[in-house]
C-alpha cells in the first residue's frame, strides 16, 4: 500500500524541530488550523450573541438602558442587527462548519496525512482572520459599523448621503466580506482536492462518510455561486469610493441587480452552511443509535440534487421586490420542490433511529435537538417560498424565525454537537457530560423560547428591522412576545457558562481520551487522540463503508472502516 503523501506537506522529521510559533501559530497542520478556526468562530459567535443581546433587550423593553451597553439609539440598533447577521453567517457559521470541522476532519476521515495544499490552508485562516479584524475595527471608525442590513441593499448602501456618516463602516463591511470569500475559496479548493485525490487505499467515494460528502457539495456550491457576489461587492466598493454608479438609478443602473447578485450567492450559501451541519448530525446519529445510517446512497444523491436546485431558487427572496411578477411563479415552484430532497434526508435521519439502541450522550442530544428544529425550519420555508403567502409574510419576523430555525440547528446546535463529539479527538481529553447536558438544555430550550414567539409576531404582521415597535398600533398585541423571546435569549446566554467552563477546563483537566471513545467506525477514530503530526502512524486500508453498526454475525456492534487498528492507537 503506497502512502499518498503530498509533496508540499512537511515530513514527519520536521515536526521535531518545530518551535512553538511554527507548531501552534503559523502552523500548516490541518488539525491546528482547524482548531484556530474553531477558536475564531467561537469568539466571533459570542460577539454576535452579545450584539443580539443588546438589540433584543431594546425590542423587549424599548428605550430602557441595556445593562453593559446603555440606551440604544436608532442608528445603533441598525448597526447591531446588521453586524449580528453579517458576523453570524460569514464569520461564525462558515469558519466553524467549513473552516474548523472541514479542516480538522476531512483529511482524517479520508485517511490523508494533511490537506492537499497545507500552505494555502494556512493562508485561508490568516486571510479570514484579517477579514474578521477589519470587521471588528469597523465598530470603532467614525460613524460606526455598517447600518445597511446584512443584505446591504442598494442604493441605501451605495450613496453615502442615505446613511450619513456611515462611510467607512460600509466600506469596511464590503472589504471584510470580499476577504472572507477569498478565504473560504482557498479552503474549498483544499477540501475538494484532498477528498478527491488523497483518499487512503480502499476509501472509494461510496465509502466516504456523509460529512465529507456534504463538505464537498458545500464547497462546490460556494465556488460556483460566490463569483457574482464578489464582483458585486467590488462594484459596490467602486460606487462608494470612486463614484462609478454601477447600482445607482440616477446613473442608469437598476438597484435590483444587487439583489440578484446577492441572492444568487445567498441561497446556495444557506446550504453551504446547512449541509456540513446536517453532515455532523448524520455522523453522530448512527454512532449513538448503534445503527447504520438509513439509505446512505440515497442521502448522497439527495444532497447533490438539493445542491443543484439551490441555484434555481434565489429570486424567492425577491417576490415582492418589483421584479417581473411572472418570474415569481417558476421560482416559487423550484423553491417548494427543494422540500423533496430535504424530506429524503430528514426522513432518512429519523428512520436511522428505528430499532436502534439510543444513548443520550451530549453529542446525541445536540444532534437530536438539531434534527427536531431543522424540521421546523424546513416546513416554515413553505409559506415563504409560496409566492402568494409571501406577499404577507415577507420581511416579517416569520422570516427571521424561519431562517434561524434552519441556520441555528445546523451551524450552532449541530456545531456544538460536533464539538462534544470530536473534542476527544481534537484535544485528547473527554468533556464533562453533566455540564454538557446542562448546556444542551439551556441552549435548546432558550433557542425555542426565542424563535417560536417570533413566528407568531410574523403571523401577526410584525415586520422586522423596527427599532421602536410602539410606532405602530398593530404591533401592540405582539409586544409581549418580544419579551418572551428576549428572556429566551438570556436563558441561552446563561447556558453558555457551563459550556465555556467545560470547554476550557476539559482541554487541560479532562479525563484522557482513548483513541475511539464512542466505538465509532470512521477513520478519524482509528488513530490516536489527538492524532500524531501526520495523522496516522501508517496509512490505514479501508475495507468497508462508514456506517456498519450492529451487523448480524459480528461480536461487537461496530466495524471500523480501517482493516487494522493503527499501531500507535492501541487502546480501543
Amino acid at each position, binding site marked *: 500500500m503506497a502512502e499518498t503523501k503530498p509533496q508540499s506537506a512537511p515530513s514527519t522529521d520536521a515536526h521535531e524541530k518545530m518551535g512553538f510559533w511554527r507548531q501552534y501559530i503559523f502552523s500548516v497542520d490541518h488539525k491546528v488550523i482547524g482548531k484556530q478556526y474553531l477558536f475564531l468562530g467561537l469568539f466571533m459567535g459570542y460577539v454576535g450573541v452579545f450584539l443580539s443581546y443588546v438589540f433584543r433587550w431594546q425590542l423587549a423593553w424599548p428605550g430602557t438602558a441595556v445593562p453593559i451597553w446603555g440606551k440604544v439609539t436608532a*442608528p445603533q440598533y*441598525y448597526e447591531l442587527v446588521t453586524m449580528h447577521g453579517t458576523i453570524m453567517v460569514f464569520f461564525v457559521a462558515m469558519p466553524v462548519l467549513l473552516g474548523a470541522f472541514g479542516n480538522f476532519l476531512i483529511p482524517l476521515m479520508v485517511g490523508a496525512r494533511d490537506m492537499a495544499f497545507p500552505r494555502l490552508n494556512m493562508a485561508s485562516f490568516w486571510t479570514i482572520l484579517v477579514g474578521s479584524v477589519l470587521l471588528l475595527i469597523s465598530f470603532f471608525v467614525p460613524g460606526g459599523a455598517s*447600518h445597511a442590513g446584512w443584505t446591504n*441593499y442598494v*442604493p*441605501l448602501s451605495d450613496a453615502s448621503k*442615505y*446613511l450619513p456618516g456611515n462611510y467607512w463602516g460600509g466600506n469596511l463591511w464590503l472589504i471584510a466580506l470580499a476577504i472572507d470569500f477569498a478565504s473560504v475559496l482557498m479552503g474549498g479548493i483544499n477540501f475538494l482536492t484532498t477528498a478527491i485525490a488523497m483518499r487512503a487505499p480502499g476509501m472509494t467515494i461510496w465509502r466516504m462518510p456523509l460529512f465529507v460528502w456534504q463538505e464537498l457539495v458545500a464547497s462546490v456550491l460556494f465556488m460556483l455561486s460566490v463569483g457574482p457576489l464578489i464582483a458585486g461587492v467590488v462594484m459596490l466598493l467602486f460606487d462608494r469610493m470612486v463614484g462609478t454608479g454601477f447600482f445607482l*438609478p*440616477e446613473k442608469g443602473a*437598476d*438597484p*435590483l441587480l444587487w439583489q440578484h447578485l446577492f441572492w444568487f450567492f445567498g441561497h446556495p450559501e444557506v446550504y453551504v452552511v446547512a449541509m456540513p451541519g446536517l453532515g455532523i448530525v448524520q455522523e453522530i446519529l448512527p454512532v449513538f443509535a448503534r*445503527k447504520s*445510517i*438509513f*439509505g*446512505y446512497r*440515497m442521502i448522497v444523491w439527495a444532497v447533490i440534487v438539493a445542491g443543484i436546485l439551490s441555484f434555481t431558487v434565489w429570486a424567492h427572496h425577491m417576490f*415582492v421586490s418589483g421584479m417581473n*411578477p411572472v418570474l415569481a*411563479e417558476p421560482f*416559487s415552484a423550484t423553491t*417548494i420542490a427543494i422540500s*423533496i430532497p430535504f424530506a*429524503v434526508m430528514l*426522513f*432518512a435521519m*429519523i*428512520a436511522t*433511529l428505528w430499532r436502534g*439502541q*439510543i444513548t443520550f450522550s451530549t453529542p446525541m442530544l445536540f444532534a*437530536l435537538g438539531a*434534527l427536531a428544529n431543522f*424540521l421546523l425550519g424546513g*416546513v*416554515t420555508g413553505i*409559506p415563504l417560498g*409560496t*409566492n*402568494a*403567502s409571501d*406577499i*404577507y409574510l415577507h*420581511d*416579517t419576523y416569520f422570516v427571521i424565525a424561519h431562517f434561524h430555525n434552519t441556520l441555528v440547528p445546523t451551524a450552532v446546535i449541530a456545531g456544538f454537537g460536533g464539538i462534544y463529539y470530536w473534542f476527544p479527538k481534537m484535544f485528547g481529553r473527554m468533556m464533562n457530560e453533566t455540564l454538557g447536558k446542562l448546556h444542551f438544555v439551556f441552549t435548546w430550550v432558550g433557542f425555542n423560547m426565542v424563535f417560536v414567539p417570533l413566528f*407568531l409576531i410574523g*403571523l*401577526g*404582521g410584525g*415586520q422586522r*428591522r*423596527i427599532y421602536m*415597535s410602539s*410606532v405602530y398600533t*398593530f404591533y401592540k398585541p405582539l409586544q409581549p412576545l418580544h419579551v418572551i423571546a428576549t428572556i429566551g435569549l438570556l436563558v441561552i446566554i446563561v447556558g453558555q457558562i457551563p459550556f465555556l467552563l467545560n470547554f476550557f477546563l476539559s482541554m487541560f483537566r479532562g479525563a484522557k481520551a482513548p483513541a475511539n471513545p464512542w466505538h465509532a467506525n470512521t477513520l478519524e477514530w482509528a488513530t490516536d487522540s489527538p492524532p500524531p503530526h501526520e495523522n496516522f502512524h501508517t496509512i490505514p486500508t479501508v475495507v468497508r463503508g462508514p456506517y456498519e453498526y*450492529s451487523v*448480524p454475525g459480528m461480536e461487537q*456492534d461496530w466495524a471500523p472502516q480501517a482493516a487494522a487498528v493503527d499501531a500507535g492507537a492501541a487502546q480501543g
Partner: protein
Amino acid sequence: MILSWLPQDVSTFGPSIDSVLKLIIYVVGTAFVLAEGTLLAFVILYRRREGGRAAFVPGESLRQLAWVLIPVVIVAFLDVAIDVRAKPVWDLVKEQSPTPALTVKLEALQFGWEFTYPGPDGKFGTPNDLVQTTFLTVPAGQVIRLLMTSKDVIHSFYVPQLRLRQDIIPGREIPAWFEVTQPGKYEIACSQLCGNSHFAMKGILRVLTPEEYQQWVSQHWPKSGAGAGKSASSARSSASGTKG
C-alpha cells in the same frame, strides 16, 4: 390557534391570501407533527437497553427505501397542490390590474409618504393635482390603483390588514392595487430597511364610505372651473361599477 394571530383582514384579496396561508399551515403543520411525533416515538421506544442490540437496516434495498420514498412522494404531491392553489392568488394580487376607480401616485422618501391625486380633470401633471403627505384617503368598495415611485432608496408599501406588500424601487414606477371592504384607519408601514428612521416611516390609510369620500373630495380637491370636479368624481364612481 396559530391563525388567530393574523390581524383583521379588510381587502378583497386578503381572504384569498389567508386561505393559501391556512392551507399551507394545515398541510405542513400535519407533516411537522407526524415527523416530530415519529422522531419522539423512536427516541423513547429505542433507547438503550442492557444487552440489547440494534437492528441492521442499511436502507439500500428499494423495499426498505420505500419507507422514506413513499412519504416523500406524498410531500411532492402536497407541493404541487400548494403551487396550484397559490398561483391564481398571486395572479390576482400581482399580475392582474382591475380597472381602477381611483389612481393615486405614491412617492416614498426617507422617511415619509407623499400621495398625489389627479384632481378633477383626472389627469396627473396638471395644476389641479392634489398632493397629500402621510394620509392616503380612499373610498371603500372601490378599486384603488397605486403608481409607486421612490425619491431615494428602496422602500416597501405594507399594510398588514390589506395583506399587501410591494417594494418601491427608485428609478421605476411600480403599480399595485387594492380594494378595501371596511372603512377605517389602517397604518401604512415601510417594510424595507431604508435608513436610520426606517421604523418611523408610517403613513395612514384612511378608508371612507363612498359618501364620506365624496364629501372629502368636495372639501379638499381643487376646483378646476365650474362643474368639472363634480362630473369627474361622478364619472369615477360610475366607473367603480365595472370593477371585476
